[in-house]
């Protein structure tokens, strides 16, 4: 029984336990904190699956955005209220049954053909980048990425709409936390730039860079150095629009060609960097906005620490 297998088994058990605890645990503090732990364990799982790109995104979004969103939501109402209902005890058997059915369905599958894999490695040379995941995201399946950015945009509009009549919030200043933030945020900007640049030839890229940028904004907001959004300023909206706009401008010439968003091989490298830079800006603002639009004002008892 080698160390790798033991590692996977323990990690799997931890994932199941933290997920079950987050969903079935009594009070909501425990639920949200266990869910944050679940995110950290997922990061490890992606590392085990040799998917460092996903691990980067999971780490940045889980640690920087999801946790803050959920903890902020906890503060809103009576946190710690026990969850009642006999349905909790119905739940595990039902989940077990579904899991057995699904896992059973996996057994009949033929071996993976790997056609896509081969297609990617065959076309990688003409993609303009040497990192396959980036090539898939920005070149081979660029239209998916473009539409995905529009989905994020729609989500942000929805959040802004739902939080419309909330008053503009700015948390009370926390001097010592601000001092630490002044050190951390420049490193976040640096890391975001590094990830953006790295995407061309190794794990990294616009999504991870944007997630780190958004995490920086979340931190600034949490220590009272950045106010929440009610109506984004014009500059903000332009920055949000930059990514899709550049993407479409680059796509426009490709419409006469056969494939949508097929980049000309000779310029692909530069075009991808251009698109990724614009996407990082937009996605950073969008992801940050998801938190900033939901930011509530201080309520009684806040402001310490």
């Amino acid at each position, binding site marked *: 029984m080698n160390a790798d297998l033991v590692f996977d088994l323990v990690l799997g058990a931890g994932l199941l336990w933290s997920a079950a605890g987050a969903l079935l645990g009594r009070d909501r503090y425990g639920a949200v904190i266990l869910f944050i732990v679940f995110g950290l364990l997922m990061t490890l799982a992606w590392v085990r699956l040799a998917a460092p790109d996903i691990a980067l995104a999971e780490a940045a979004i889980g640690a920087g955005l999801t946790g803050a969103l959920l903890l902020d939501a906890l503060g809103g109402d009576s946190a710690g209220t026990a969850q009642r209902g006999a349905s909790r005890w119905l739940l595990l058997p039902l989940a077990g049954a579904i899991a057995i059915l699904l896992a059973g369905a996996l057994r009949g599958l033929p071996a993976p053909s790997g056609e896509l*894999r081969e297609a990617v490695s065959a076309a990688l040379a003409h993609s303009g980048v040497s990192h396959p995941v980036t090539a898939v995201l920005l070149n081979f399946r660029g239209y998916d990425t473009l539409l995905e950015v529009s*989905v994020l945009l729609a989500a942000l509009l929805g959040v802004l709409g739902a939080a419309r009549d909330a008053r503009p919030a700015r948390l009370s200043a926390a001097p010592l936390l601000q001092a630490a933030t002044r050190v951390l945020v420049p490193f976040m900007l640096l890391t975001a730039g590094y990830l953006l640049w790295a995407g061309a030839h190794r794990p990294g890229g616009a999504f991870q860079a944007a997630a780190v940028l958004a995490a920086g904004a979340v931190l600034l907001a949490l220590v009272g150095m950045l106010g929440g959004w009610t109506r984004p300023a014009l500059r903000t909206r332009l920055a949000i629009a930059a990514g899709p706009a550049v993407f479409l401008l680059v796509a426009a010439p490709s419409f006469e060609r056969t494939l949508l968003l097929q980049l000309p091989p000779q310029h692909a490298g530069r075009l991808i960097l251009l698109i990724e830079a614009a996407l990082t800006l937009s996605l950073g603002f969008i992801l940050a906005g998801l938190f900033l639009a939901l930011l509530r004002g201080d309520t009684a008892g806040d402001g310490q620490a």
Partner: protein
Amino acid sequence: MSSGLFYAILGCALFALGLAATLLLREALRRVLAFNVMGSGGFLVFVGLAQRDGVVDPVPQAMVLTGIVVAVAATALALALLRRLEQTDAHEP
């Protein structure tokens, strides 16, 4: 058993847990968490199955990468609607 297949099966279990919780739990916040667990399980199945022969496959990895970002956006939207719900409930007599 390849670790790809292992994580695919693990993903099935997580997906099932999240699905059952989404259906059965009453608390809205738990449902949001359950929805996320469901998503993570689906992602694991997607990548794990594609790599069950132990070879890295960039295509599902790219899809899941964008999926994670969409999932957090959906979570934020759900939380926004949740708060809206609390406000309207509070205002009703």
